[in-house]
Every structure is written in structure tokens, then in C-alpha cells.
């Protein structure tokens, strides 16, 4: 099977006039823990949702989002219209599309996919439930038309249902039979010389979960023919091993480079541009009104003082070696128009001290301030990579008479500790927010009441905020204004202090070109191995 898979790549290579040598296949290394989903698993219903990047590459969606403006652009759909009441969306598809096995790719596949996800949205397809909010039905009146009917207007249909991967009905239908229990265990992998059926620019010809995935150009792809004949992804256990392999020439490109490796890679001749951040590091301050102890943390003046005592620039300089931007609002820089222009809070321990003095938090023995007779000493929950950031935070807070102690946990244990007892226990927590789709909705929902206990990392719950969240879901205009207002609420109430936006750092050998080197968007962004990322890549000479 392995021989057939690589032979398939070799045939494709020879077909495009290139030599059938391994050097024509782009070799990418990725640290397994950086993958959104389970590395190399092509089943979005299993585990944490399958390998998001790999699935995006083989299963197309109705639309894509361009960069850096993040405007929707045609993909499977060439155009779309919405009815005046906002309840009916009609998509026109490209004609004569095919899956990689030659079967037609039509509106029927789109309608089947969305109907199946709707059918099981409270069961095996619950992970897609947020993409299908208010969707009632999906139908295909003909081969090139898809009609989506909603029971309420939804403002981000294109980012939600429009961005859902389209599955080939003729491959997945059997697994979806009955109650759909076959979907999570369906093994979506190449078999007996047959690549995975794909509708994207590449298909998968070899797969070893957690180890290696080999992609070859899809001869039936409806979009621009990729210059690359194929590429492979090797999954590494640590970034050190990945960097070593890159320098030794065992791989050609690697996303998710740690900041400490940038200068040595550039000195070795590798291309390592800085691209706008898709993620952020946050310090959560418990906002739960029913907090059991250290209730002075609910005092807005204490929260503001803590905010002013965090040296964000030092975090950028020391933790990220300059490859980051100081944090301010919850939408990272790559989200462009969705971000209000609010500056990063100034580092001003003197002002913080004056604020706490005026609020009556006097200094006690050892210089630690007292609140209700107890020292202002707090526990900060963190993960194993929080140490350096914590040290800077600790140093800043010491200057204003607040003492903090780090408790390191792995991510599941950290969330359990934060959300324990209805979020009433924890004081502060350090966390990098996971990446969501290229729409502000996910980042906003992290602070909504309905995500408490699920992925609300602070415990924040504010009725006004939630009302605005529902509004921005359904408005047909003015959404940017609402999203901005919501971020202003979070900025003022401080359930999370956004510390930094780490740049997306990807590296590739100078023997390859065609990567989008725009500072606006990372070509090899691990979470978004979207089709346009690699279609222009080719060897130099």
C-alpha cells in the first residue's frame, strides 16, 4: 500500500514534467501538540475533531476568506444571495466539479452534508452544532444550487455553514446510516492503493496517524492547478526535534517555530517572516460574583491596578524575543476590521500603587497589601509553558504589593481547577486561547454565559454582553459596531487581561518559494492549512 501511495505521487510528478525525486515533494514538519485536532486523523467526528488543517485541505467548503481583509470569496460556491428577511440563503455552485475519484461533486453533496450534520447535531455531530445555529434545512433543487433555510436571521452564515467542510456523500453515507454511530469510528484513510476521496487541491495517498501524512495533487481539482505535485507532513514530538530536522535538511518547512529558534534559523539562511497573530495569551482574573475567597479581586480598582502592573512590553521582549505584540482586546491582530483601536494598557506601577492606596489596601508585613485582614496573596493557575510569563507578572505585582504563586497543571486539569465549584474557587489563571475560525464569533463566545463549564476560561457572565452576542449573531448590518462594543465591555471589566499576541512564525528553506510572505497572514499557519496556503508553492530552480 505504501509503495502504491508513493508510486501515485511519482506518477503525478512525472505527469507534470518534474523529475520523480523526493526533492519535488515539499516536506513539512509539525509539532503534534500544535495541531488543532488529532494529528493525521481525517475524521472530523472523532476525538477532538480530527486534523483540522488536513481536513480543510481535502474537503472544500462553500466559501473561503481572503487575507488580510477576511472577506468571503468564492470557492465551491461562485455566488450567493440572501432573501430580504434574511432567512433563505441561495448558493450557486461551479458546474462540472468532481471528487478525486471522478465522481461528480454537486449541490447534492453540500445538502447531504449539512442535512446529516443537522440530523446528528445533538449526538455525534455536536461539534458542528455552532456552525448550524438556526439552520432548519439544506436542499439542492438542482446540481448547482444549494438553498439553506433558517428560522432566524444569522449574520455570519458564510463563516459558519458556509465554511463547513463538504463530505462526499458516496463515501460517508454508509457510516451516517441509522443513528450515525458509525461516523466517529469511520476510518477515513487511503486503502489498497486508493487515495482518500478529496475535493480540494490535494488528496491523501498515505496516512499514519500521529506520524505522517502524504498529499498528492488532485487531478480533478476545480480550482487553479497547484504548482506542487505533493507534500508530506511529519509530526514531531517536540519543537527541538523539528528545528533540528529542518536545519539538517530532513524537512523543508515548519510552522509554529518557537521564538528562540528564529535568529538561528535566519542565520542559517531559512526564511522566517513574522505574520500577524491568530492567538493570544491571557491572564484571567476571576469575575465570578459568588467567589468564595479573596473577594477583593472583584473590586474594579484592584483589577485595574493589576492591569497597570503587568509589563506587556517586557513579556514581548523576554518571552517572545520581540516576536509578538502587546495585548489589548480579545480579537488578535489577524482579525483586522473586527478589532477596535484600543491601545494596550500602559505599564504604570506608580499609578497602580496610588489607586490601591486610595482604595484602602494598606501594606502589611513584608510589603504585601492587606484586604479584609488577609494578605493579597493569590494563586495563579498555569500550564507548563507559563513559567517565564508568570515571572514577569509576579515581578510587576510585587511592585504594587501583591504576591502571586504559580500552580502548574496540564490543560485539562487547569480547566477543571478554573471551573470547579461554579468558578468560585480560582483566583487567577494564565492561558493561551485556542484558535477559532476566521470570524470573531468564537473568541466572543469564550466570555458568554452559555459557554461556562464548556470553554469559558474566566467564568465571565454578563447579561448585557450575552444580549449583544445574540444580536451580532443575527444582524444584517452594523455587526462590526456590536463586536467592538462587546470588546469594550471586556476591556473595561477585565475578566481577562490580554498580555500578548504571539506572532505566527513559520520557516521554510530558501530552495522553496511561493509561500505568501505577507506580514498579514501566515502561509503555513498550523490551524489553517487551507487550500490557498500551498497552491503557489514550488521549488526555486
Amino acid at each position, binding site marked *: 500500500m505504501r509503495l502504491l501511495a508513493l508510486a501515485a505521487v511519482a506518477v503525478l510528478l512525472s505527469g507534470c514534467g518534474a523529475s520523480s525525486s523526493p526533492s519535488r515533494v515539499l516536506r513539512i514538519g509539525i509539532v503534534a501538540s500544535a495541531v488543532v485536532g488529532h494529528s493525521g486523523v481525517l475524521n472530523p467526528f472523532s*476525538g477532538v475533531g480530527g486534523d483540522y488543517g488536513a481536513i480543510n485541505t481535502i474537503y472544500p467548503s462553500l466559501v473561503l476568506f481572503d487575507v488580510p481583509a477576511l472577506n468571503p470569496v468564492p470557492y465551491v460556491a461562485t455566488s450567493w444571495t440572501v432573501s430580504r428577511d434574511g432567512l433563505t440563503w441561495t448558493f450557486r455552485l461551479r458546474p462540472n466539479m468532481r471528487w478525486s475519484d471522478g465522481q461528480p461533486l454537486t449541490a447534492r453533496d453540500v445538502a447531504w452534508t449539512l442535512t446529516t450534520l443537522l440530523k446528528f447535531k445533538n449526538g455525534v455531530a455536536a*461539534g458542528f452544532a455552532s456552525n448550524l445555529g438556526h439552520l432548519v434545512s439544506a436542499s439542492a433543487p438542482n446540481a448547482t444550487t444549494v438553498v439553506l433555510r433558517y428560522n432566524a436571521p444569522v449574520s455570519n452564515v458564510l463563516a459558519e455553514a458556509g465554511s463547513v467542510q463538504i463530505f462526499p456523500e458516496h463515501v460517508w453515507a454508509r457510516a451516517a446510516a441509522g443513528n450515525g454511530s458509525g461516523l466517529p469510528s469511520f476510518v477515513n484513510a487511503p486503502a489498497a492503493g486508493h487515495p482518500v476521496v478529496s475535493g480540494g487541491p490535494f488528496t491523501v495517498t498515505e496516512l499514519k496517524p500521529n*506520524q505522517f501524512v502524504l498529499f498528492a495533487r488532485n487531478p480533478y481539482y476545480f480550482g487553479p492547478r497547484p504548482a506542487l505535485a505533493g507534500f508530506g507532513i511529519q509530526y514531531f514530538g517536540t519543537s*527541538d526535534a523539528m528545528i533540528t530536522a529542518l536545519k539538517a535538511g530532513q524537512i523543508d518547512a515548519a510552522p509554529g517555530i518557537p521564538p528562540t529558534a528564529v535568529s538561528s534559523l535566519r542565520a542559517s539562511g531559512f526564511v522566517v517572516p513574522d505574520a500577524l497573530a491568530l492567538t493570544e495569551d491571557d491572564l484571567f482574573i476571576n469575575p465570578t460574583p459568588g467567589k468564595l475567597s479573596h473577594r477583593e479581586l472583584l473590586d474594579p480598582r484592584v483589577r485595574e491596578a493589576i492591569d497597570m502592573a503587568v509589563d506587556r512590553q517586557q513579556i514581548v521582549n523576554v518571552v517572545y524575543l520581540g516576536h509578538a505584540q502587546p495585548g489589548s482586546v480579545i480579537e488578535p491582530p489577524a482579525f483586522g476590521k473586527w478589532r477596535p483601536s484600543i491601545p494596550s494598557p500602559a505599564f504604570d506601577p506608580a499609578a497602580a500603587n496610588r489607586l490601591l492606596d486610595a482604595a484602602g489596601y494598606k501594606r502589611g508585613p513584608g510589603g504585601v497589601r492587606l484586604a479584609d485582614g488577609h494578605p493579597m496573596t493569590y494563586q495563579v493557575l498555569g500550564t507548563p509553558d507559563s513559567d517565564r510569563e508568570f515571572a514577569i507578572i509576579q515581578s510587576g505585582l510585587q511592585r504594587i504589593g501583591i504576591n502571586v504563586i504559580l500552580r502548574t497543571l496540564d490543560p485539562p486539569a487547569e480547566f477543571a481547577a478554573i471551573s470547579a465549584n461554579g468558578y468560585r474557587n480560582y483566583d487567577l489563571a494564565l492561558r493561551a486561547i485556542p484558535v477559532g*475560525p476566521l470570524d470573531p464569533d468564537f473568541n466572543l463566545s469564550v466570555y458568554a454565559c452559555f459557554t461556562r463549564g464548556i470553554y469559558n476560561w474566566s467564568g465571565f457572565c454578563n447579561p448585557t454582553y450575552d444580549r449583544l452576542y445574540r444580536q451580532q449573531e443575527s444582524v444584517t448590518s452594523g455587526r462590526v459596531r456590536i463586536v467592538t462594543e462587546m470588546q469594550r465591555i471586556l476591556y473595561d471589566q477585565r475578566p481577562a487581561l490580554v498580555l500578548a499576541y504571539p506572532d505566527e512564525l513559520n520557516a521554510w528553506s530558501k530552495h522553496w518559494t511561493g509561500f505568501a510572505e505577507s506580514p498579514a497572514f501566515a502561509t503555513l499557519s498550523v490551524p489553517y492549512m487551507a487550500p490557498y496556503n500551498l497552491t503557489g508553492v514550488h521549488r526555486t530552480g
Partner: protein
Amino acid sequence: MVRARYVLERAAFALLTAFVAVTLNFVLFRALPGTAVSNLAGVPGASAALQHALAHEFGLDKSTWQQYIDYLSQLFHGNLGVSFDNRQPVAANLAAALGNTVPLVGLATIVAILLGVLTGLVSVWRRGTWLDQVNTNIAIAFFAFPVQWLGLMLVILFAGVLPTNGMENDFLINPSFATHIGDVMTHMVVPGVTLALGLYGGFALIVRSALLDTLSEDYILTARAKGLSRWGVLRRHALPNAMLPTTTLIALSLGQIVAGSILVETVFSWPGIGRAIYQAVLDRDYPTLQGAFLILTLSVVACNFIADLVYLKLDPRITG
């Protein structure tokens, strides 16, 4: 008769140990904060509906006692359950991972045993000399080094010379069988050396210590008085008697091969059971963890039982 009773007693103890370990396996991972549900549901697009669906699918909405009964029932039918992560049978997942681990860790362990026994023997043969000092201190040093640090140092040292990641060169096109085997063996060198260096020190020190104890016995003095050479005394009298404690260590080490090495497999991206265990801990994948630790437990218990039988052969007096 006495021997038969000894064997039966050891067998019964082995079965009891296995049952206790199975129960502890079940309890231990559920004591970890955070569950697979909270872990898997904490992703973009998650919802309360997803949490309920996952909890029901994994049986985590049942009482702990019911989950335990279901677990024992599955075990007695030879079913290790389904992974919470990729929804595939745990047995199949672990079999694939074990198939990658056993050659690497097995070979490294055997090399470590041979090297350790030889080093310990040489140290005692030349005890008190500079060779003994050097051997002992090197063994202690490698025994003390964190194995993941040692692995990272070897990654840096051998970068570009020997492969330091994965089990094979996945980009090798159309390799012959011999080339493929050679490729895998080449990939085993650096992680294997790392493991062997980390293990051999313990063997060397145990063998040296056991031999030194044996050399103080009266029968050794008799052997010397009879005119046997130093090497002859070691080989024919001291070493066989020193093998008893060494046998225990060898048995336990062989039993632990199936545990892989979490640190080494992660550093070298080796797709073995150690790395699978590490990922399963992060994912709170209880069935995989229970299955992996069950295999480890049964392997150690079985090897220990075999060691008891070997003892019987080495020294029949132990039945008394």
C-alpha cells in the same frame, strides 16, 4: 511436592496482583482532574450538547461503580474498549504502538543488560584500580542523567549524521525490503543508544554490588586457596551466585519493555506506546490508559513469575 506448592503459590500471587492492578488502573486515571469530556468539548464550536453526547458515548454519565463493572465485563471478554480519542479499538491502537516500541526498547534493554553485566564484572575483576573507579563513576553519571536531556544532547550531536526523528524516512520512494529495514535500524540507533545508556548504569551497579557481596563468602576463599585464578573464581563461583538479585532486575526490566519510554519516544518522535500513553494522559483517554497499563502490569507480573521459576532453578533452597 514442595516445588509444586511453590509454583502454585507464586501463580496465585501473580493473579491476585494482576486483579489489584486492574482495579487500581481504573481508579487511578479517574482521580486525575479534568475528564475526556471537558477536554474534548473545549474546542471551537463546542456546546453543552456536545458535552452530553460525549459523556453518554463514553459511558461517563453512569455511576463510577457501573463503569467499573462494565470495564471488568469487557476485560473478561478480551475487550479493551474503544479509544475516546480516535474511536478505534484500544487493542488495535496499542498493538500498532507496541509493534513500534518492542524492537527499539527491547534491543536497547538487552544491550543495556549485557553492557551493564560486563561493566560490573570488569569493575569487580579490577576492583580498587583506576578502571573500577572510572567504570563505576561513568555508570553512576549515566544513571543520574535525565534521559530526556541525554536524548536532546544526542539529537544535537547527531543532527545531520544520523536520523533523530521518527521510525523511518517517510519520504523514501520505493525502498526495497532491505533498504526499509536498514532505514528503520538507522533510525533506531540514536534513541536506542539514549535508552541503553540510561539503563546500563543501574545494571552495572547492581552486578558490581552483588559480586562484591559474594566475594566475601568463605567458599570464595576456598576456591582461591585451591589455586583458581581471579577470573576463574569470578566466572565459576561468584557470578552464578550473584545472578539472583540480577535476575530480579533483568526480569523487571524485560517486563517494562512494553511500557516503552515516554520521554525518549517523545524526544525522538518515535510512534511507540510510551508516546501513546503521554498523549492519552493529555487527552484523558481512559480506555487507552487502562489498556496500556494493563498490558504493562501483566507483562511485569508475568516476567516476575518467570523470574520466580528461574530462581527455583538457580537455587532450589528458596522453596524452604
